[in-house]
């Protein structure tokens, strides 16, 4: 292997990244605009002016997401009558941007980097926390938007200071935070990177960001009295299954701190080990009842080995970290730890795979830089060490390969399911709690149903026992 930076290896890694993004985009654009989470949003977003839409969202109860609606409205206006093409390709464009940002942060330069790039990207798209960013859309996937903001923040804070980086960091924070609550993690990325020595954003700007971070809570809870969603608003995973709001209140109503602590801990474990998922210990339950689904084991092995690689990297670099002499790869792992902790904390009221997606993408980055670092220690090992390491690497790569395929099969499964939703649109509209849909809604229904169902033949589910190895449901 060539040990020194070589433009050819960098090009190979970037070309591979483009192939991965293009391949996934093929499956992504096949997923129709979904009915249940998108139809009402489009109707709402098309009302009034962009300004009034965003302004009114500052005065909602429970949620403060004005730019979520602003973003949706802008694409809606640009799309004109071609909603499906615009929204689906917008999603594909976001995916491509994420892959590009991933590679920009990973900085592939050597043969080792090029060898690590495929598994790094498999971790990016194959981790279960990522699934919800591509299998769903509302019709813009808000979580994907936040992932882009987080990676964007990391790119901004690295390298030399520039005045425009300060401005960009501020804009990213404000946009992300007022898009969805997990946008607060943009500040965590910037602050953690700063603590680890990144100086792309100046100290005054970091101080201003801290002020904005604190100000957000004042704005939300005091000035606007938006508040937060309560325990009673949705079901949540707990133990071996999902609990209804009533069951949660019965269990924790008097003192929900235990429930919140459970959500924080299980959210972090989910990223590190893929178990539990959404607060539910699926694999453990399957083991207890003796009906283990193969993909659960694949997920556990893949994530545990990747977590082990990160832990080994952190251990080998502990002295450098304690001396606060962080290098870019150190920073990526350090920021991952910060984002994981913060992401888990903001999941306190409600744990769900996709909510942990920011921690998930940094997990993929941290694991990749750890692997390239550990790759170098292989030639120094004895024969037994090499054999053991080779077995671990083969298992790691094999399991992540399975997860990457599962991510694509999952998109196909989502496409079939969402297409079928549109067949039952009239029943859905009748049961949606809004008895009098106007002509605009009916016109939109006809247009989206035509795009989803009538314009082309169906894709179909893949079938067979082999599919139980893949997390695609």
């Amino acid at each position, binding site marked *: 292997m060539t040990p020194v930076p070589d433009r050819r290896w960098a090009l190979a890694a970037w070309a591979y990244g483009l192939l991965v993004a293009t391949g996934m985009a093929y499956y992504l654009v096949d997923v129709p605009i979904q009915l249940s989470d998108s139809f009402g949003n489009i109707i709402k977003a098309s009302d009034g002016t962009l300004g009034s839409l965003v302004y009114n969202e500052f005065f909602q109860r429970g949620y403060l997401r004005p730019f979520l609606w602003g973003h949706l409205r802008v694409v809606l206006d640009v799309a004109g009558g071609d909603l499906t093409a615009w929204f689906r390709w917008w999603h594909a464009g976001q995916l491509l941007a994420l892959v590009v940002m991933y590679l920009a942060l990973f900085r592939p330069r050597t043969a*080792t980097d090029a060898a690590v790039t495929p598994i790094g990207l498999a971790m990016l798209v194959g981790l279960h926390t990522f699934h919800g960013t591509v299998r769903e859309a509302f019709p813009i996937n808000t979580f994907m938007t936040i992932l882009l903001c987080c990676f964007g923040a990391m790119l901004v804070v690295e390298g030399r200071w520039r005045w425009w980086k300060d401005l960009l960091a501020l804009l990213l924070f404000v946009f992300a935070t007022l898009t969805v609550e997990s946008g607060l993690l943009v500040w965590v990325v910037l602050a953690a990177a700063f603590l680890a020595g990144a100086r792309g954003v100046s100290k005054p700007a970091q101080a201003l960001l801290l002020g904005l971070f604190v100000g957000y809570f004042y704005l939300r809870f005091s000035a606007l009295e938006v508040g937060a969603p309560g325990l009673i608003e949705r079901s949540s995973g707990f133990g071996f299954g999902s609990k209804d709001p009533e069951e949660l209140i019965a269990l924790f109503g008097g003192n929900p701190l235990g429930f919140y602590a459970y959500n924080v801990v299980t959210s972090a474990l989910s990223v590190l080990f893929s178990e539990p998922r959404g607060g539910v210990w699926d694999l453990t339950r399957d083991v207890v009842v003796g009906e283990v689904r193969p993909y659960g084991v694949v997920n556990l092995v893949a994530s545990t080995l990747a977590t082990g690689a990160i832990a080994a990297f952190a251990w080998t670099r502990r002295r450098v970290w304690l001396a606060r002499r962080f*290098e870019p*790869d150190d920073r990526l792992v350090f920021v991952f730890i910060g984002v994981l902790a913060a992401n888990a904390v903001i999941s306190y009221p409600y744990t769900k795979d996709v909510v942990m997606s920011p921690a998930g993408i940094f997990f993929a980055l941290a694991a990749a830089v750890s692997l390239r670092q550990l790759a170098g220690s292989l*030639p120094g090992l004895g024969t037994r060490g090499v054999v053991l390491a080779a077995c671990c690497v083969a298992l790691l790569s094999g399991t992540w390969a399975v997860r990457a395929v599962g991510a694509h099969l999952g998109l196909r499964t989502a496409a079939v399911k969402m297409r*079928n939703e*549109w067949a039952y649109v009239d029943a859905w509209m009748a049961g949606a709690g809004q008895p009098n849909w106007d002509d605009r809604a009916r016109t939109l229904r006809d247009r989206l149903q035509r795009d989803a169902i*009538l314009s082309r033949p169906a894709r*179909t589910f*893949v079938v067979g026992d082999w599919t139980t190895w893949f997390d695609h449901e």
Partner: protein
Amino acid sequence: MSPAPSVPRASSAHPVSAHRAGATTGAVVRAGLFAALLALPVLAATAWVVGFAVLETVAGETPLSRGTPHNIAEAAGMTDAGEFLRLRAQGQDPNWIYDIRPEVISSQVLRVNALEAAVWSRQIALVELVDREGLIPDAATRRELACLAEDIGAADIAHRLAPEPADTPCDPGQAMARVFARNPPDPD
């Protein structure tokens, strides 16, 4: 963009020390083995994913699937409501008797119309869709479908199609037998 990383990557440091020890070849082989083990499984997965997409685009059928329904009766039998509506919009008649493949419903059910196939799918939502679309032409057909639902043990569908008891009850097994009787004669 970020400056060049100065993390002392062992990949660049160790081959040098290995060379000093006179073990350059072994180190390079090990590094190559490691790289291959790391990259090849995922590259194979990517090739699979891309190959799947190319095959699907070229052949027009999803590989490793039951295939696209060949007609509106197959669409109903496979509970593919979207394809059911698309084929209907293309002009296929849901009351026409179609040949369907044995794997769609069973090897005993080879000639059905889409309404019967919908009942056989046991998906009440699909039967409701058929009804809501006004595809059941008359009371006699409705009763025949309800009897078929009873024959296959789909009581919820039977009740949905005929909520009130009929003057003359279904003759058990006869609706199903009428469908079986349409099968082409067994060559053996």
